[in-house]
């Protein structure tokens, strides 16, 4: 039995922080009250490094904070203008690559992509809209899969499972043609609670539990009062 290792020290933008060995940069920063934005990450799922919104810089090299373990003496750059602008560009790309109509989307106010766009003060994307032709696909009896809004974060692929641990969602094709697929039989086997969880885990309005849309009034939705990341930053005090 190895005895527990001592905590390690690192800095984020010059601020002294400490971490348990093996923590990712993102986790460790969070424990120190520093918010690193991320879309594909979900506490408890294996990190995917899919969205790259959490990109930080260490010693001049760019790395995904959600997959990179923190090491002793590491000096992480996070809240610096060029990195923030790059993250904003990534968020803008996600907007132009899909069809995101926030005003009529039931996830509005609870959507992490929208919340990040607000946090980054995105007005008009710098890239041209792609207007891809996508559709709404029934996923079993309880869910609709709104492909127009999918950002391929793979949270559903990693984390939506039936009681006997079978993956309900998968992927088809690669690169820009990548598409989320659904096993209709397994999706139909999801309980109401599981379907609800699946909806909550999707960062955008792509997984829709049927018949619950717009149930929370404007003003009481997740990001109506405070920007995304405020919970992490508040913990810092």
């Amino acid at each position, binding site marked *: 039995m190895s005895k527990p290792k001592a905590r390690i020290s690192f800095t984020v933008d010059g601020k002294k922080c400490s971490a348990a060995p093996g923590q990712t940069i993102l986790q460790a920063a969070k424990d120190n009250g520093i918010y690193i934005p991320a879309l594909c990450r979900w506490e408890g799922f294996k990190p995917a490094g899919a969205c790259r919104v959490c990109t930080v810089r260490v010693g001049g090299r760019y790395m995904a904070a959600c997959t990179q373990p923190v090491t002793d003496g590491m000096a992480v750059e996070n809240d610096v203008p060029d990195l923030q602008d790059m993250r904003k560009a990534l968020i803008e790309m996600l907007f132009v690559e899909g069809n995101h109509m926030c*005003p*009529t989307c*039931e996830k509005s106010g609870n959507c992490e992509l929208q919340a990040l766009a607000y946090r980054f003060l995105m007005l008009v994307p710098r890239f041209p809209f792609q207007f891809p032709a996508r*559709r*709404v696909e*029934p996923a079993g009896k309880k869910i*609709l899969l709104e492909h127009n809004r999918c950002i391929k974060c793979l949270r559903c692929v990693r984390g939506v499972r039936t009681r006997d641990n079978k993956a309900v969602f998968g992927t088809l094709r690669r690169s820009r043609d990548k598409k989320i697929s659904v096993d209709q039989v397994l999706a139909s086997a999801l309980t109401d609670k599981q379907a609800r969880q699946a909806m909550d885990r999707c960062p955008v309005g792509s997984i*829709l539990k*049927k*018949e*619950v*849309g*717009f*149930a*929370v*009034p*404007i*003003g*009481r939705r997740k990001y109506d009062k405070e920007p995304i990341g405020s919970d992490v930053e508040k913990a810092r005090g």
Partner: protein
Amino acid sequence: MARKIVIEPVTRVEGHGKVTIRLDDRNNVASSRLHIVEFRGFERFVQGRPYWEAPVLVQRLCGICPVSHHLAAAKAMDQVIGVEADGLSPTAEKMRRLMHYGQMFQSHALHFFHLAAPDLLFGADADPAVRNVIGIALTNKELATRAVLLRKFGQEVILATAGKKIHGTGAVPGGINKNLSIEERDALLQGAGAPAIETMIDWAEEAVEFLKDYHAKNRALMDGFAAFPSNHLGLVGRDGALDFYHGAMRAVDAGGKRILDDVDYRDYLKYIAEEVRTWSYMKFPYLKSLGKAEGWYRVGPLARLNVCDFIPTPRAQKQFEAFRAYTGGKPNNMSLHMHWARLIELLHSGEVIRELLLDPDLQKTELVRKGRKRGEGVGLVEAPRGTLFHHYRVDENDQISMANLIVSTTNNNEPMNRAVHWGAMNVLSGKRDITEGMLNRVEIAIRAYDPCLSCATHALGRMPLAVELYDTGGNLIDRKAR
């Protein structure tokens, strides 16, 4: 020389349309037409969408009356999930009503003070630079302040019920997503963002009195301008009361004889059909029993006061009695009396809002009910401009497969064309030179109907609308765009 006049855009009308008037060789009106470019995009756009999204999605049809679309769609979707209109929880129904009467209040205040009052106060021939809401602000500060605050009050009601002043959420299939907090209630009762409800009701009543006074001084204009007989259609409550949110369809003819009575609006297709005319994209609805030529009808404030038996609030009822007495109890067929009717409805909306605010049901917590799902729903409401029809079919995956909307302005298509024709015959016909004031009179005829062209065209956002003169050879000889 024979000429054709085109009025485009029609100013102070929401949306986009065009008026063409053909003059013969002696400058007499040969024909007149109001063209509204109807764009059926929305009916296509909603196909495939989840049904519960419809109330939020379709309100984007309009920036002026989104609540009407929101509620008509919600009423249709209530049926889709198996909840009848009278099967909603009292809290849900009353919250929706509050939202709806709030919108009626803001829309009627906007129309009267911003769009109609400039013509009435300054006259049709006044300089257009003065004949507008800014002109009112400069010459009649008190009236302008009231205009702003009355409208604001309506918007505050919408905010408290839908979460936003425009394009909120609120109604969901089977109910509503919030009740009214005590704080929200008291802000509206006592005044916070806008004056208190009592003040609003007083001002609305004074607006009716202002119009009656104007009428007394301008009887020939008010009674004669664009007056013509028509049928009238609207919803009435079960007891025959004026009701903007729910009821049965009733239609009367110009003399007051009932053509439709107590008709369940889910059967609207049995009674109403839409005629397509080659020169217009906007359809012409008519009552099937009377046929295409005779079956056209008016909707809106005038029609509503013509079809209902009474108004269920005391101060508006008193005004209604005077309104009815003026035509000896018969339907009122005078287009400019639309303004009178509209202000009585403004007053009524204020009274209903107060009644609802004092109702403890609004603080209760049963918000949504469910029933057995079915694949179809029809929702009707009385929008500020008249009866609004929403009809949807939903497939087994909960996706919308069919949508049919008949908006108020489409219902008023033929009456507006008649009003334009009246204006052309009585103002332009036989005149050699067309003045701005003459063109404005034609527009006043249209404006009485408060047409919402962005609704009628089912387009996203608002579009502009101009006046052009053509000879019989189709050559442009004059153009007046404002």
